């Protein structure tokens, strides 16, 4: 079936479907696409040593097409299986039934297999066997060489085509050398036949008959599918399935990777990992952006370690502490030195000033200020108690005890105090500077950071107090204790007020602090780097996964489209299949009805159903009208008959170039009534096909003789040493002559009947001989099969048929008698007698007429 027509059909169906444009575009694109992996999916594989391999080797060879009709002319075999010396099985090209009978072991199957191997490069019966079984393909009685030669007629090629396959000593069965040549010696390639061989298989053996129904359901599906021209449909389904596979595979891998990724993230002590795990933890609510931001960020790590809602694990705490430790800084040494110097300078200045009048003024001012304060406190209190008193009270001086501190004193003292303070101002400024400097010290000296404080409970991670083990590796430990002690000394400076002590403390505590803290921070940073080394690959995994997840997110729509397209296409394909298989199934049912004879099994419609691995052939089998899908109800003979009913339409399909059919032993396990049916079926097929049947007993030949079916019967005898001989037992010409002889031998037959009927039978014998000659000659010349049959049918009279045989021209009927007379006078006489005897009766010797007819028929058959 042309691919284009199929595509148009599907496209037309698409137009009427309610699929979105996106989906129907997918199907159309798949229709255009080249086939994906067709070879791998089906069983239609021509085998490793396909004849094309070696036959194609010659350059400039002509290719045998899969359209030109082919008939067999001869099969010659030497040294193969049961056949020893060279022997030729001659066949009549053209439609007709040939039975080759021979006892088991006479070599008949060897002929059938030889023909198959020579043409296809493999034998079905052999290819599936164990090596030990295949070992015996060489004949024991012949020398090293094995040679098979098939002569056939091919439409469009003048002269017979010879296909040979030969094996040298030591070659394996698959290593034979194949070649094809025309009568003129031109090289041919048989590669054009390969597909046709697997699709139509003109060879059928007994074993294959059982396999046809007993084999895998998908194999029969593929076989039928190919004949129905539905390969394009399978290709589209395959393309779509492949697309779906790619998409689902990506998603499958994505979610397969998800649990291990999460586990790895959660196992990692890195806080970023914990955050990523939080973002990706719920498959239904992935926070891809956050995960991406976290993972794609280059280190250093972000600040506060533990995300909200995240369980605080020991590893997390550990990581946070490491981060804090790595971030520990001490004040710059210059800053510390400057501050200490300032403190000392101010302290010295203060000491210096205290010895001068400024110092006296300051001390006096302090004393006076206290006295004034004392006086004011006291008078305030009295005024509160005696509101009417009004005048300031007089108090004795607490210093001398004699003087009176009154209002006048107070005024003088306040004036004096202002003077004194003015005089002591430089000292006050120095003291103020000291206070500021001490405040700066408290700013500079930070309390002990939390990270340095050793946890109270002995954590397992701290095997020794004051030593923090690095989390994952444990390869190095961090000296926290030294830094902590140094910092404690340092922090104690905050509590001191004496500038000189503070300045000394700063100078003394700073260097060990700086050393200890810097060492600690470096160690912590190193530990963090180690953690990062663990994180970075994990981060890479996260970014890869997130990209894949984004792609999968983007693929959701395409995947839905492909799924929809496949679903629709399956339905459409099923309709197409049902439609295509109908005529085929009817043919099968017709053959079955001839074969079944008394069987109570009915064969209904045959359907191809399912797809992919579920594909199978549904045979609607009913037993006594009751549905029974199981083939198990049928006897072995019935199964074979059913297999034949399915095989024959396939092998005789109009699309097949092979007009021949080689069947090996179809009669086994058939009861006599079915053999009669088989004979009829074969004769029916032989009306348009060349049917060659090998059979091990006489039942089929007997049925053919009894039912007077036109057929050639050859007997095959194998002598010692594998010498095989062929003897023609019955042929269509001989059959008519035998009928005539039987009539003549019937003594009581009325003379008036005999003189009419015997010439009629003789005439038919001659006509049959002429037909045979014309077919052989014209088919060998490459004429079209249909043209040959048309020429034979339009030659009505025996004279026209003879003209065709003699001159290859039916219009030269007038010259027939003269030509025969030129050959021999008896030939012309005999021809005249059987031509006219039909109408007026033959007055001469009837037995003599039959004898001469046999000679005349031989003469016609021997014409080139």
């Amino acid at each position, binding site marked *: 079936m042309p691919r284009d027509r199929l595509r148009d059909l599907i496209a037309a169906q698409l137009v009427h479907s309610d699929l979105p444009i996106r989906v129907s575009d997918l199907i159309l694109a798949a229709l255009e696409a080249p086939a994906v992996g067709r070879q791998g999916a089906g069983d239609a594989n021509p085998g490793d040593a396909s004849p094309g391999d070696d036959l194609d080797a010659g350059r400039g060879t002509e290719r045998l097409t899969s359209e030109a009709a082919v008939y067999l002319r001869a099969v010659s075999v030497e040294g193969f299986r049961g056949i020893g010396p060279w022997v030729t099985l001659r066949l009549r090209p053209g*439609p007709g039934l040939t039975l080759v009978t021979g006892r088991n072991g006479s070599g008949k199957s060897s002929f059938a297999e030889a023909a198959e191997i020579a043409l296809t490069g493999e034998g079905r019966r052999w290819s599936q066997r164990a090596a030990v079984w295949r070992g015996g393909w060489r004949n024991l009685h012949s020398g090293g060489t094995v040679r098979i030669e098939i002569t056939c007629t091919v439409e469009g090629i003048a002269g017979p085509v010879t296909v040979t396959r030969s094996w040298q000593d030591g070659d394996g069965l698959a290593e034979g050398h194949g070649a094809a040549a025309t009568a003129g010696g031109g090289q041919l390639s048989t590669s054009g036949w390969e597909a046709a061989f697997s699709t139509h298989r003109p060879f059928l053996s007994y074993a294959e008959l059982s396999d046809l129904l007993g084999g895998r359901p998908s194999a029969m599906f593929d076989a039928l599918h190919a004949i129905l021209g539905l390969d394009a449909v399978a290709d589209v389904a395959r393309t779509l399935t492949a697309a779906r596979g790619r998409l689902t595979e990506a998603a499958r891998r994505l979610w397969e990777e998800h649990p291990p990724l999460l586990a790895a993230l959660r196992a990692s002590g890195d806080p970023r990992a914990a955050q990523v795990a939080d973002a990706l933890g719920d498959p239904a609510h992935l926070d891809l952006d956050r995960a991406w931001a976290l993972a794609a960020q280059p280190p250093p790590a972000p600040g506060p370690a533990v995300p909200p809602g995240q369980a605080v694990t020991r590893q997390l705490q550990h990581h946070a502490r490491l981060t804090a430790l790595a971030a520990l800084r001490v004040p710059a040494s210059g800053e510390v030195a400057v501050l200490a110097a300032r403190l000392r300078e101010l302290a010295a200045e203060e000491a210096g000033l205290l010895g001068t009048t400024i110092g006296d003024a300051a001390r006096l001012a302090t004393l006076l200020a206290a006295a004034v304060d004392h006086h004011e406190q006291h008078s305030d209190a009295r005024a509160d108690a005696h509101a009417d008193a009004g005048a300031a009270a007089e108090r004795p001086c607490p210093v001398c005890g004699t003087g009176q501190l009154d209002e006048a004193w107070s005024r003088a003292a306040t004036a004096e105090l202002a003077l004194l303070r003015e005089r002591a101002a430089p000292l006050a400024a120095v003291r103020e500077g000291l206070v500021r400097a001490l405040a700066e010290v408290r700013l500079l000296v930070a309390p002990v950071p939390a990270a340095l404080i050793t946890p109270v409970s002995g954590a397992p991670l701290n095997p020794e107090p004051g030593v923090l083990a690095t989390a994952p590796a444990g390869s190095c430990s961090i000296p926290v204790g030294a830094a902590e002690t140094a910092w404690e000394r340092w922090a104690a400076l905050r509590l001191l007020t004496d500038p000189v002590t503070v300045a000394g403390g700063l100078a003394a505590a700073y260097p060990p602090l700086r050393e200890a803290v810097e060492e600690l921070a470096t160690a912590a940073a190193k530990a963090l780097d180690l953690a990062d080394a663990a994180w970075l690959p994990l981060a890479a995994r996260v970014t890869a996964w997130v990209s894949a997840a984004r792609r999968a997110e983007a693929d959701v729509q395409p995947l839905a489209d492909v799924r929809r397209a496949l679903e629709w296409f399956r339905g459409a394909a099923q309709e197409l299949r049902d439609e295509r298989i109908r005529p085929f199934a009817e043919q099968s049912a017709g053959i079955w009805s001839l074969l079944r004879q008394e069987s109570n099994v009915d064969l209904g419609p045959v359907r191809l159903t399912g797809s992919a691995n579920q594909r199978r052939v549904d045979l609607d089998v009913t037993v006594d009208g009751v549905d029974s899908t199981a083939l198990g109800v049928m006897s072995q003979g019935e199964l074979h008959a059913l297999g034949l009913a399915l095989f024959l339409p396939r092998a005789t399909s109009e699309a097949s170039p092979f007009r021949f059919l080689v069947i090996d032993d179809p009669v086994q396990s058939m009861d006599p009534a079915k053999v009669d049916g088989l004979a009829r079926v074969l004769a029916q097929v032989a009306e348009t096909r060349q049917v060659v049947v090998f059979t091990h007993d006489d039942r089929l030949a007997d049925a053919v003789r009894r039912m007077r079916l036109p057929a050639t019967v050859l007997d095959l005898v194998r002598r010692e040493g594998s010498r095989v001989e062929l003897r023609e037992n019955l042929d269509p010409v001989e059959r008519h002559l035998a*009928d005539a002889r039987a*009539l003549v031998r019937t003594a009581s037959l009325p003379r008036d009947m005999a003189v*009419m009927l015997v010439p009629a039978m003789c005439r038919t014998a001659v006509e049959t001989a002429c037909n045979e000659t014309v077919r052989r000659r014209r088919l060998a010349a490459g004429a079209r099969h249909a043209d040959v049959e048309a020429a034979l049918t339009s030659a009505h009279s025996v004279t026209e048929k003879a003209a065709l045989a003699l001159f290859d021209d039916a219009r030269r009927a007038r010259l027939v008698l003269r030509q025969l007379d030129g050959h021999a006078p008896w030939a012309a006489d005999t021809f005249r007698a059987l031509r006219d005897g039909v109408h007026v009766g033959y007055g001469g010797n009837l037995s003599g007429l039959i004898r001469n007819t046999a000679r005349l028929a031989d003469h016609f058959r021997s014409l080139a």
Partner: protein
Amino acid sequence: MSRPGPRLDPEVPLAQADRLLRGGDATDLRGSWPRICAWLLRLAVEQAVDEVWRAHGRPELMRLPMRAQLLLLPAFVDGAAADEVGSAWYALSRAGHLHAYELAPTAAELRRWHQDLCALLPRLIEPEPAPPNGTPDRTPDGTPPNGLRPSG
């Protein structure tokens, strides 16, 4: 082989075979009834052929051996029917004889033959539907089954 006896209607042996198949009086026949049934069916065929000779005014042909009669038959009746009568007669002859290694026909086979004959035998005495050189019975060589029809 010659049966000069009185005129017999093929319906009679057909009916007897039918009764045998239904198991009517098969009890005393035990295992031999299938072959007897086949003989009855073959007798029906022979009597139907006799009817043909009688109808064409050639009763002397009834005395011929059956093979000769079957060879002559296409000259008188529809070729396809003649062929079927021939193959039925040969098949029934075979079934009716005891052959080594071959079993008697089954009831289903016999029933089928019976049905076929009930349809086939009446066709022998119908007037010929097609002109003598009509084509319905042509074999693949393009010649009539046994060449009895004049064609020119």
